[in-house]
């Protein structure tokens, strides 16, 4: 019953995708959004049902529906056949154990639902439905209307399959599939060169991360001999493995997450991806696909727990990216880009939480993922609504004071901004606060956290000897726990302060964008014409639905009720103790939020010369921020230019050495050797051809008979 439900969730968008793809161009046309909306809505309903089912399920809290066996390779049992063929000898050990050169490879396409996946699914399908409804209004009248919805359905299907994966290979496959959908949708307006370049960039940058991910999957297979989550992600099994190898696996997997979730240094693709349609930015590049990396790292929590170094690395990258992206977002004028950098920053927060190494951090990260999906999708859709009204203009200098023209958008955008800034009762506050608390605790806990983790895992193992070994190893690890010469705790402390500062910046840049857009004198770009108006209700309705989520999700599920933590603990068992509210962190973040919003109010709620003076004061720093820390340029000179040089070199090598001397030489050699004598044979005289043919036939026959006789 539940298995059927699980199967139904990906099936709905898949059917929607196929229907739209087949019938869209000719039959559905302007009605192409219906299959997608219906499919996503049905999937959302099923996901909510699944949420309840998982909560009520018995102990492992997990359902697995195996669809079919994809790969089944029995490793050749080397020696078994050979030994059977040989006569029995006395000194040969008569064992039935054959020599296996490696483990069997057995991979199924299976749908595996636990509380982590169910949470993710519920968020994903819900936001997808909202975005699909919104798109019906936003994309109305576009060329390729049906194509858009076919791609969106395909994306939803792929993402659902990614979330429901039961093994690493399936995860990887759909990881690539969502990347493909992202590529297709960023480049949806393929006549626009910027869109094409952005889609290409997104795809190529993701390749780097995916390469690391693939290596990680290979390493998992060679280490564990299997790829299923159930087998790999058991702490007992992980504890038996070489810790260095586990760290390496974690780093490789995290490389994939860096690419997909746009962390430093691979974050450069996400802002450019804003060239795609705004609903796509909301769905894929804010709410769902970019969080796949977070989901994957959360899924692999047992692995990361066993690799403290990797965990610190994750946290550091997350914290650093959060700060960097927030700094860049301060000075951007493109509304969607501000939101994009904000997304990068918030994803950094999530990784900071994941890297904190406690169940508090993990559940905080996942909770932030869910709330972020709501308020960021809301903000993007609001930005899309503004863009829709402004005739495609998204530069905040071109418009302003829209709060009277677009009241609905204004209100929902305000809710989203407050949630993003982390104002106390709204959802963003709760999740961000949890992450910061986790970072604080990691910074002030005893340094032997990792060691205790390892020893906790050990009791399941048989034998005191092994246990002692693990304990000794853990001691060693504990003494070695250092990164960049600093102790872990120090790093976490630093990260906490970085995160808090980022919270300040977040509040500031969010409201900078908000005030620039909705306050100040009314200013409408001439592209909008005279009909700048509020968006239609089909676009406003999803905004309101999402803003309800953005406002109350934290209150309902967050730290106050502990509902989310408890739900997630069914899959990711933590330390079991309920954390007391860290009032210092709560107070700090509240203060920071008000400070940020206040600063933005002073600087931007109406035009004044304050921003200019600040910029003049900051000088090179502001320029650095405005130019995104010159990272694109740095990458250009570090990677693109050498690559271009190398490709030019290869091209010339190909032309002159391979083609010129190799292929061309080989083909010119016979022409040069025999061509002179053979060319006269091609004299155009049909009788000559017939003569040579028959003469050759006769001689050949004679030769054959000679050989045979």
């Amino acid at each position, binding site marked *: 019953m539940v298995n059927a439900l699980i199967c139904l969730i990906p099936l709905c968008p898949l059917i929607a995708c196929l229907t739209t793809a087949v019938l869209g161009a000719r039959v559905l046309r302007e009605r192409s959004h219906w299959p997608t909306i219906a499919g996503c809505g049905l999937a959302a309903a099923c996901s909510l049902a699944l949420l309840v089912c998982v909560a009520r399920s018995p102990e492992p809290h997990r359902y697995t529906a195996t669809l079919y066996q994809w790969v089944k390779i029995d490793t050749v049992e080397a020696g078994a056949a050979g030994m059977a063929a040989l006569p029995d000898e006395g000194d040969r050990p008569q064992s039935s154990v054959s020599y296996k050169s490696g483990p069997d490879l057995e991979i199924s396409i299976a749908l595996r639902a636990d509380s982590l996946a169910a949470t993710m699914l519920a968020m994903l399908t819900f936001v997808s439905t909202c975005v699909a409804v919104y798109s019906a209004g936003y994309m109305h009248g576009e060329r390729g209307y049906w194509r858009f919805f076919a791609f969106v359905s395909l994306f939803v299907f792929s993402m659902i399959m990614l979330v429901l994966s039961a093994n690493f290979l399936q995860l990887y496959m759909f990881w690539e599939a969502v990347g493909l959908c992202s590529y297709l949708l960023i480049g949806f307006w393929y006549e626009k060169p910027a869109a094409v370049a952005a889609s290409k960039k997104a795809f190529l940058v993701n390749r780097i991360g995916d390469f690391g991910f693939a290596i990680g999957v290979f390493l998992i297979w060679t280490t564990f001999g299997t790829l299923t989550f159930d087998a790999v992600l058991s702490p007992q099994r992980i504890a038996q493995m070489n810790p260095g190898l586990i760290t390496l696996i974690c780093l490789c997997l995290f490389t994939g997450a860096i690419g997909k979730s746009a962390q430093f240094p691979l974050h450069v693709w996400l802002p450019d991806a804003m060239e795609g349609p705004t609903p796509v930015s909301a769905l894929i590049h804010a709410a769902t696909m970019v969080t796949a990396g977070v989901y994957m790292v959360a899924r692999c929590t047992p692995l990361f727990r066993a690799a403290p170094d990797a965990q610190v690395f994750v946290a550091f990258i997350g914290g650093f990216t959060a700060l960097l992206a927030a700094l860049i977002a301060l000075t951007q004028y493109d509304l969607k880009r501000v939101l994009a950098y904000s997304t990068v920053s918030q994803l950094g927060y999530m990784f900071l939480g994941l890297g904190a190494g406690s169940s508090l951090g993990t559940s905080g990260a996942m909770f932030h993922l869910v709330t972020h999906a709501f308020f960021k999708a809301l903000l993007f859709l609001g930005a899309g609504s503004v863009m829709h009204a402004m005739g495609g203009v998204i530069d905040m200098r071109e418009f302003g004071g829209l709060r009277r023209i677009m009241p609905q958008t204004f209100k929902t955008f305000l809710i989203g901004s407050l949630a993003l800034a982390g104002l106390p009762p709204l959802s963003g506050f709760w999740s961000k606060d949890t992450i910061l608390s986790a970072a604080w605790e990691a910074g002030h806990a005893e340094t032997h956290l990792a060691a205790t983790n390892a020893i906790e895992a050990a009791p399941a193992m048989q034998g005191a000897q092994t246990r002692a070994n693990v304990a000794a190893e853990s001691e060693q690890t504990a003494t070695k726990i250092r990164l960049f010469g600093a102790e872990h705790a120090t790093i976490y402390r630093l990260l906490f302060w970085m995160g808090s500062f980022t919270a300040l910046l977040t509040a500031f840049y969010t409201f900078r964008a908000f005030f620039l857009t909705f306050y100040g004198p009314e200013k409408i770009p001439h592209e909008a014409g005279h009909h700048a108006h509020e968006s239609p209700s089909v676009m406003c309705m999803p905004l309101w639905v999402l803003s309800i989520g953005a406002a109350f999700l934290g209150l309902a599920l967050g730290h106050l009720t502990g509902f989310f933590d408890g739900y997630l603990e069914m899959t990711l068992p933590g330390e079991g103790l309920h954390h007391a509210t860290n009032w210092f962190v709560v107070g700090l973040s509240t203060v920071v939020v008000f400070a940020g919003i206040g600063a933005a109010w002073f600087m931007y709620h109406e035009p004044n010369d304050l921003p200019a003076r600040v910029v003049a004061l900051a000088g090179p720093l502001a320029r650095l921020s405005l130019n995104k820390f010159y990272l694109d340029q740095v990458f250009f000179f570090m990677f693109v230019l050498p690559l271009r040089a190398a490709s030019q070199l290869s091209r010339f090598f190909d032309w002159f050495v391979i083609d010129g001397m190799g292929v061309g030489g080989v083909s010119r050699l016979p022409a040069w050797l025999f061509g002179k004598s053979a060319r*006269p044979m091609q004299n155009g005289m049909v009788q000559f051809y017939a003569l040579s043919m*028959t003469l050759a036939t006769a001689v050949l026959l004679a030769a054959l008979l000679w050989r045979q006789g």
Partner: protein
Amino acid sequence: MSNSAVALNNYLIVGGLLFTLGLVGFLSRRNLIVMFLCAEMMLQGVSVTLVGFSGYHSTWSGQIFAVFSLAVAAAEAAVAMALIVVLFHRGDSLDVSLWQDLHEPDQPTLVDEQIVDEPVPEPQWPHLAVAGPLPTHPQPLTATHRQLDSTEVGRG
């Protein structure tokens, strides 16, 4: 060796020789039509062989095959004749040497040895007895063909 085998042998030999002779003709003659005749002769050689086998095996297959080859030869003849007519209209000659354009671009065209033209023999008109006296025209008759004939007749 049985009689049927000998009979088969004989047919095979006749068929093989016909085929070979056709081949020699095809290779050496330069007239398009004669070349085509020779190709037909090769087909005839094959047909003889098939009929011989048909009789030897006491089955219809050989004959049926020969019927098919006959039909194909007829089709081929139709198309080939049309082609030859077109080629003749283009080149004003049936010489196969005219059609060697598909040679290597820098190869010289094959030029056949030139032979002295045999003088076309004078048509030997029949000598008819004069059936009456020559008409007494004032001028000599040299204008038209019809009259040319009559002058010949008159001279005879």
